């Protein structure tokens, strides 16, 4: 390098033009490819967002309905209708006329398929009641107060192919042809039928405050399989005129609506009045049970519908509570028809307005003005169609598009009073074995669980990762740093399923066994570290000459391991002294803190372990990247390395360290496998360190495989994904803004 130049003639080598053209083409090509790559990334993220929005959006679209007039031979339809029902495929309907004809007819051409006279004598039909469980069983009460039981049943004939399937209706009498005496002197005002596996119950209300309960215990002959009924009849006399009668699905509660707007609540076993609840100042005009037979819906003369159900208190006493009201009708409610698959219902008022509500969501999903007051209507089992008959013999069919009535902002994000719950709560419980189950789609417990898991993970990871990064970047010997940094970065490559597996199957039981030991470690290890450091700086051992500055961690490591083992092994006596022998039992018995094996502490440690490499690596780079001239300047002024670190290095590195923390947080929020495996996945809302949680991400992983495509559940899971997406988006955007400001404030040049 020190040889003097031998000056030759200055000459610039010229390259042919084709070379320059080729080079600029390559240049342009490369810049286009890189630009395209960036655009593709943005487009991919946007596509994910759009797909999520596309799947989620039907949840928030309003319901719609369209009516079509049914044409055909309608002479037979002119007789008054006492009862109307639709079968599943919406091809065949079942009608009982007041004259006592049970008729099946096709909806396509309004032609009768079958008609049977069911009158025992010349009595007309007074009232018909549908089974609460919608089994097709109906109770037909005649004017003299006698009742017979019929069932409309359907089978499907696929002989012409699936597309041309034919519905074959059949009228059956599963409990025999005999008549039951339900209201001896006639004057029947209300009728209820409920057929369960163990009991067939008939209840009737009559004029003058008469009520009769006919309970029939089912006995199955174990040889023939025949079912015989053992009847017991109970009578009740009340001192008000009964406007409506309902009974709960478990046959335990009887509800009577009166003409002054009160609901009377009876225990059927004693037939004593338990409670009177005033739901309105006007007469109750219609009552029915919601699907599941727990909630009773009472409609009044003003058009308000009130939902009530019995709530159990701590002493196991039930009291009837008003849960919510549904407004929307302006005149008396004529009929309330519950949906057969969901907790929704339909109501018709005296002016011919028809509304569809959903009880859990507490909202009206649809309202429609009908051309007149229908004489009878039947809702299809899937609640996708409605058959309407008018007095003049006209028939209409209403197509209802109402896929997601249970979703409203309130049902997702605020407290909802679910059936059988003592008070409004946030609950996520999306599915159960039975149709009658009320799905509970509150996203709050999941959002809470996500934040809880992330918080505990950050509590564990932040001090370790940031302090470790500061030490490694600033104090550690470069040779040691070259080993330590890649080692920690390799930890990031550890599959999270392995971390989850270790956390759930090894660490959780270990923690349960050694809870006191682990807490002792948290006290003993930092204290021991400080004591060791103090001795190290004071002592003048010979050993000190062999350990150069920056290599102390190698010495510290065995000390920490020994301290850890000592904490675990010798915590026994302390545990005996302070916590009566076992910290875990002491926690639940004395402190009232319940302990789950897979809890937030396990998740905090395991997920903290997963995010440490990310935070450490980025923060370490940020600290190491602070120009050496800055630390030199500070040191040369007499600042100690510690003062330099705290006053100069850390503020200058703060934008990068902040990014590290935010990226770690983003990872902790979105992390799925560890929380899935290391928590009980119980969607509870409790900050308790020793209880689990369910996060949005884990919830999607758990439930997506079992949710029916395009169902409300499926779409709500996508909504959870969208919420997660938005959450990370907001956090990252906020983080970037803060980072920019920090960078402005502490940029070194």
């Amino acid at each position, binding site marked *: 390098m*020190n*040889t*003097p130049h031998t000056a030759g003639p200055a000459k610039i080598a010229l390259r042919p033009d084709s070379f320059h053209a080729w080079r600029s083409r390559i240049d342009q090509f490369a810049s286009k490819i890189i630009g395209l790559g960036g655009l593709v990334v943005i487009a991919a993220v946007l596509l994910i967002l759009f797909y999520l929005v596309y799947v989620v959006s039907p949840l928030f679209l309003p319901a719609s309905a369209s009516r079509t007039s049914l044409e055909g031979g309608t002479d037979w339809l002119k007789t008054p209708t006492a009862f109307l029902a639709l079968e599943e495929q919406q091809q065949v309907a079942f009608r009982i006329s007041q004259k006592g004809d049970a008729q099946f007819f096709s909806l396509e051409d309004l032609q009768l398929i079958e008609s049977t006279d069911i009158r025992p004598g010349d009595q007309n039909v007074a009232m018909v009641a549908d089974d609460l469980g919608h089994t097709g069983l109906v109770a037909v009460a005649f004017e003299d107060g006698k009742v017979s039981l019929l069932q409309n049943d359907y089978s499907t004939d696929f002989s012409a192919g699936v597309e041309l399937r034919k519905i074959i209706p059949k009228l059956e009498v599963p409990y025999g042809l005999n008549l039951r005496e339900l209201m001896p002197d006639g004057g029947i005002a209300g009728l209820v039928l409920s057929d369960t596996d163990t009991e067939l119950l008939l209840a009737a209300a009559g004029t003058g405050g008469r009520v009769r309960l006919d309970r029939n215990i089912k006995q199955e002959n174990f040889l023939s399989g025949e079912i015989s009924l053992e009847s017991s009849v109970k009578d009740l006399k009340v001192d008000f005129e009964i406007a409506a009668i309902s009974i709960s699905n478990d046959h335990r509660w009887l509800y009577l609506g009166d003409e002054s707007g009160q609901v009377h609540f009876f225990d059927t076993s004693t037939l004593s009045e338990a409670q009177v609840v005033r739901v309105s100042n006007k007469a109750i005009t219609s009552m029915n049970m919601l699907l599941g037979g727990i909630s009773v819906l009472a409609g009044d003369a003003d058009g308000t519908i009130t939902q009530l159900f019995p709530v159990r208190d701590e002493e196991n006493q039930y009291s009837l509570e008003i849960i919510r009201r549904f407004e929307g009708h302006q005149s008396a409610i004529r009929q309330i028809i519950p949906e057969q698959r969901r907790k929704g219902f339909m109501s018709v008022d005296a002016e011919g307005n028809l509304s569809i509500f959903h009880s859990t969501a507490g909202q009206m999903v649809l309202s429609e003005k009908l051309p007149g007051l229908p004489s009878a209507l039947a809702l299809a089992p899937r609640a996708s169609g409605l058959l309407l008959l008018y007095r003049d013999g006209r028939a209409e069919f209403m197509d209802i598009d109402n896929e997601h009535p249970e979703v409203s902002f309130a049902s997702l994000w605020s407290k909802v009073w679910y059936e059988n719950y003592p008070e409004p709560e946030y609950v996520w419980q999306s599915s159960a074995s039975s149709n009658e189950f009320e799905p509970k789609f509150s996203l709050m417990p999941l959002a809470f669980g996500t934040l809880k898991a992330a918080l505990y993970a950050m509590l564990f990871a932040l001090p370790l990762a940031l302090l470790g990064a500061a030490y490694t970047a600033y104090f550690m*010997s*470069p*040779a040691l740093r070259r080993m330590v940094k890649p080692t920690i970065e390799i930890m990031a490559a550890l599959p999270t399923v392995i971390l989850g597996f270790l956390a759930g199957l090894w660490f959780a039981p270990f923690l349960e066994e050694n809870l006191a030991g682990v807490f002792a470690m948290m006290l003993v290890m930092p204290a021991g570290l400080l004591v060791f450091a103090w001795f190290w700086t004071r002592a003048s051992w010979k050993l000190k000459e062999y350990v*150069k*500055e*920056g*290599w102390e961690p190698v010495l510290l490591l065995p000390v920490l391991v020994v301290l850890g083992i000592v904490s675990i092994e010798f915590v026994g006596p302390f545990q005996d002294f302070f916590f009566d022998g076992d910290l875990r039992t002491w926690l639940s018995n004395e402190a009232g803190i319940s302990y789950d094996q897979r809890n937030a502490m396990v998740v905090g440690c395991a997920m903290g372990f997963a995010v440490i490499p990310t935070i450490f690596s980025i923060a370490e780079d940020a600290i190491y990247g602070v*120009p050496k*001239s*800055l630390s*030199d*300047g*500070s*040191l*040369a*002024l*007499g*600042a*100690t*390395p510690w*003062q330099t670190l705290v*006053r*100069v290095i850390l*503020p*200058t590195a703060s934008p990068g360290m902040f990014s590290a923390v935010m990226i770690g947080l983003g990872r902790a929020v979105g992390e799925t496998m560890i929380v899935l495996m290391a928590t009980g996945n119980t969607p509870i809302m409790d900050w308790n360190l020793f209880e689990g949680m369910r996060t949005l991400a884990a919830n999607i992983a758990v439930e997506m495989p079992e949710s029916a495509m395009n169902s409300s559940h499926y779409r709500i899971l996508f909504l959870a994904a969208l919420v997660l997406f938005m959450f990370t988006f907001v956090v990252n955007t906020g983080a970037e803004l803060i980072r920019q400001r920090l960078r402005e*404030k*502490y*940029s*070194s*040049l």
Partner: protein
Amino acid sequence: MSDQQSKKGVDARLAISTKKLNLWYGTFQALFDVDLDIKQGLITSMIGPSGCGKSTFLRTVNRINERMDYVRISGKVDVMGENIFGSNVEMLQVRKQVGMVFQRPNPLPISIRKNILFGYNIHTGGKTNQSKQDDIVESALKQVLLWDKVKDKLDHKATTLSLEEQQKLCIARLLPVKPSVLLMDEPCSALDPKGTEAVEELLWDLRGKYTILIVTHNMAQARRASEECIFMLMGKVIEHTETGQMFLTPKHKETTEYIEGRYG
């Protein structure tokens, strides 16, 4: 001029005195038996090609090199008559005596005022009242001829100043600590000619109050701005004499070649 000072005891006129100073970076030896005596109150310049050990020498006097674990030092360095490697010497005291200015201006990313007070607060524990602090800031900035330019923006970030002003600020922040020696590692290499001139003027201004040891690549600068000059090559001191004499009648062949620009 004779550079053979009495070796007995400590000569009070010497600001820096080294004996058999050797320094290794790992296995690479950067300084070989450096014996130097630098007189108080003078501006001494150090010249020599890149990698000859000038900066290493400066950093050793300030004990900044020791933070790297692969640095090994043998020999003796006295600053103002005290052995800086003595077992009872605190690093803080060494750095209080010996201020350092770096090649690239390195003001801390905080306000001008806080930059000036940074070292002072570290040495005094930061318990000085406001008016005293104001006086310190004013006097330090006046000494480096910066006061009039920045007196209205003391709370602005130091990094918003021009490079020349930043470098002056870096000198100014040493002064409240009251050092006796200022080490300058190519303080003008990042500056334009006008800034260089300003800093050189400042150096002449500070002459006498402080012992200044300045490393430079700029021969003209060494000639203009120093009273004594040291030429180093490959980690060894080749020549140490009065500046005028060094540039007129160098004793060694290497010095002549370097001054004439044959290498470096």
